[in-house]
């Protein structure tokens, strides 16, 4: 845990990057604390900086200034290799476009996350319960092309949490789904949070989806607004 007792502790976080000759200030001094077991929804318009925050939290890009601490580890002080290593176990991603490997079955898509993390491919009893909760136990031997969007997203959620990450980062997890599948995925996320205590940060445009979280944080112009 960080000094404040939060699982995630963000202080004065800034991120700028260059697009051609223009410098874009994507994040401008963000401060945020997220407690362990919290389900936080981050909402905001396009360009508000929520995806950049998501990428920094996931270790996909380094911050320009400020500190980001997950489970007591400051990402701002990490090298590329350190952040790559952190992604194996500390963070699980769920993307809008599912991002499953198309050549592998659902089972292998989950197994490869275990393999990359250097863990045995066989998952434990806890994960069997998760698969039941996700409702994909009977679909594990299918490849993504044979699955619906909702099923693919639930496989992606299974892959994201198979290594017991400290946080699950979900970027518009229902963005490509119809209402029925959106509800199913959101219920699964809430179920993971309530039953297993999984800390979840979810980015969304959709106020109804955001309402599934314990707390909603609004972002605008690279800052958090309440």
């Amino acid at each position, binding site marked *: 845990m960080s000094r404040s007792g939060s699982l995630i502790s963000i202080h004065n976080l800034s991120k700028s990057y260059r697009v051609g000759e223009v410098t874009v200030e994507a994040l401008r001094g963000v401060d945020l604390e997220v407690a362990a077991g919290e389900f936080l929804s981050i909402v905001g318009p396009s360009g508000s900086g929520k995806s950049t925050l998501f990428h920094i939290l996931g270790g*996909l890009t380094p911050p320009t200034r400020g500190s980001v601490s997950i489970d007591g580890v400051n990402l701002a002080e990490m090298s590329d290799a350190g952040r790559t290593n952190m992604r194996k176990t500390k963070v699980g*991603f769920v993307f809008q476009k599912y991002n499953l*490997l198309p050549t592998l079955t659902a089972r292998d898509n989950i197994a*490869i996350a275990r*393999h*990359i993390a250097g863990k045995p491919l066989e998952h434990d009893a806890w994960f069997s319960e998760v698969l039941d909760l996700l409702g994909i136990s009977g679909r594990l031997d299918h490849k993504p092309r044979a699955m619906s969007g909702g099923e693919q997203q639930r496989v992606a959620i299974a892959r994201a949490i198979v290594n017991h990450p400290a946080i699950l980062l979900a970027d518009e997890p229902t963005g490509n789904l119809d209402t029925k599948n959106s509800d199913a995925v959101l219920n699964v996320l809430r179920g993971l949070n309530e039953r297993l205590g999984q800390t979840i940060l979810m980015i969304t445009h959709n106020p109804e989806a955001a309402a599934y979280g314990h707390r909603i944080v609004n972002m605008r112009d690279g800052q958090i607004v309440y």
Partner: protein
Amino acid sequence: MINKLVLENLKHRPVRTLLSVLAIAIEVTMILTLVGLSRGMLDEAGRRAKGVGADVWIRPPGSSAISFSSAPMSEGLLKFFGEQPHVTVATGTIAQPIGGIDTVTGVDLDKFSRLSGGFRYIAGGPFQTPDDILVDERYAKQNHLEVGSQLKLLNKQWRVCGIFESGKLARLVLPLARLQELTGNTGKLTQIFVKLDDPKRTNEMVRAFKQRLPDYAIYSIEEFTSLFSVNNVPGLKPFIYVVIAISVIVGFLVVFLSMYTAVLERTREIGILKSLGAGPRYILSILLRETFVLAAAGSVLGILFSFGTRWLILEFAGATLTAMITPDWWPTTTIIAVGGAVMGSLYPGWKAIQQDALEALSYE
């Protein structure tokens, strides 16, 4: 797990996989066929030389064992060799190039029979007229000749009077005097064969002949046939190396293009793996294993193809070309193929490693 991903990736793009394997197979086949041809031709020449049945082989001064020189030796030397102790037969032949690497050989059939036991005829028999020609079975098969067929050589029509079993001296045989006359080499010979009363005296007699004729190339038959190797054919080794180099470049380019395309096509997948925590070694390992599978499969297919090229050569050009299967070269060609392929995958691999995870994940 990586192996599973590699195999699934290869299965996912079967045409690209097949083309890559095929290109590497052709690379391997090229090398094996060239080596097989070189060895086969030399082995065949050596076997035919042995089939003559001589103990000592004499070539003109300054000549190499393997050459297509015409007739620079005097026929008078036959008398000299015939008079030497322990010599039972001395006969000579003249070899006339007829295009490419083919030659027609002029033979004194009577003396040649005493030397070698004569040709074993499959059809027909010895010369009946000055315009008769003997051909061996391979030449007859390739050129669809039978006894009585006409054959145009040296601007003349010849009648095939006999077809003999391959493996002795030459494929095309004319009467010695007739060929000497036609080529303006009357009284001249290309090579002389000597048979001794006791083969154990061969080395002793070779030494004696060399003392008397120091400028001539005089070999025991064992020594002579041992010279039929790749190392003794001027330019052959560099030629093989050039073909190997071209093959490696072809393999390199094919794998380079294939893997480069694969990396571009799988940009998003590489991003996914990176988002899961896969490091450079993990990504590179996938590409290198994929390359290795392509190269190994290509090598096996190339080896199988080399049986096919050998069959084609023997079936359609068996009189001119002889090819061997060369298992001792299989590991070498596999190493060459894998090495070229790995080199070809290094830049695509480096590109994959360098890809930014965020950009890769947003790649469409």
